[in-house]
């Protein structure tokens, strides 16, 4: 925390209120406060335990279990985890829609990873100490991004790097996919006000 004292507290409280869904838990508010404090104060460095607390919360947030989204792209007629076929115009939970799009249609993740495996792999990426963590705004809204080399999560059509996006205002993951252009996509114009809370480690440098 900067030495400005109470005004800073008030600014943070307003930021947290504006970027946290109604009904969020005390832990979610506390985590958002840590994220936004680090995002908006260049002098603020999260301690290792604070970053761990943030990531533990993000790992448990998952995709929004109550939302539904219309199927898009080429996931129509793919087989859902429950064995039924996706119908044109159908609405699916975001977790399923992302699984079908990125694992089954796009083949970014390993073949046969399965629905539960996809979600477990996302949690694994968030918990991985070699993953980078950055906070920034996308289309004006604060997000936390976890980025890691694909490594064992490289599928038939996967890319070198993958991301998990967590949007504060929603309190859930909004996507988890492989990046076409790697880390370059984490810069403007796609993202603004970017600050790395932890830089990623590259274990497999390109040839």
């Amino acid at each position: 925390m900067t030495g400005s004292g109470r005004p800073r507290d008030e600014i943070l409280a307003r930021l947290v209120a504006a970027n946290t869904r109604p009904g969020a838990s005390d832990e979610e508010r506390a985590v958002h406060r840590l994220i936004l404090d680090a995002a908006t104060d260049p002098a603020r460095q999260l301690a290792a335990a604070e970053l761990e607390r943030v990531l533990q919360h993000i790992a448990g947030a998952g995709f929004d279990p109550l939302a539904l989204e219309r199927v898009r792209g080429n996931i129509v007629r793919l087989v859902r985890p429950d064995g039924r076929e996706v119908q044109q115009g159908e609405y699916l939970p975001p977790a399923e829609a992302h699984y079908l799009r990125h694992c089954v249609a796009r083949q970014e993740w390993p073949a046969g990873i399965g629905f539960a495996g996809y979600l477990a792999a996302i949690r694994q990426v968030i918990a991985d100490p070699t993953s980078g963590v950055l906070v920034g705004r996308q289309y004006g809204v604060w997000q936390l991004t976890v980025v890691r080399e694909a490594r064992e999560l490289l599928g038939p059509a996967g890319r070198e790097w993958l991301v998990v996006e967590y949007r504060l205002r929603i309190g859930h993951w909004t996507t988890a996919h492989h990046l076409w252009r790697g880390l370059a996509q984490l810069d403007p114009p796609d993202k603004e006000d970017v600050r790395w809370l932890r830089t990623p480690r590259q274990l497999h440098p390109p040839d």
Partner: protein
Amino acid sequence: MVTHTKAAASARLSREERLTHALDDIAAMVAEIPETAAEWPGLPDGERAGFAAEWDNYMAGVTVLIGAYYEGDFTETQRDQLFALVREIESATPLLAQMGLHGPDLLNLGVLLHPERYENPVRR
């Protein structure tokens, strides 16, 4: 836990297969733009956020594909697919603007798609 052993079973597509796969995949997403633009104002925040992040990634994919085209990796069919895809994105520009989204970096592909726009004869 996904292990390295399991990943070994995940054979990579060939470069040509990956290019075709990507062209088909991005084209399917781009074809959805008119319908998505129509429903955009009423979409929940989470769905818009997810779509915007995916869209940016798809447009990054188009830029990568254009780079691959310049490197000479494309068959004639793939080149035609790529040009058709870029033209479709260009025609969707007003809808994308309504949604606050942007198209890809064309890496000067426009000069091949629309040479008439770039012709600027030197007068002596």
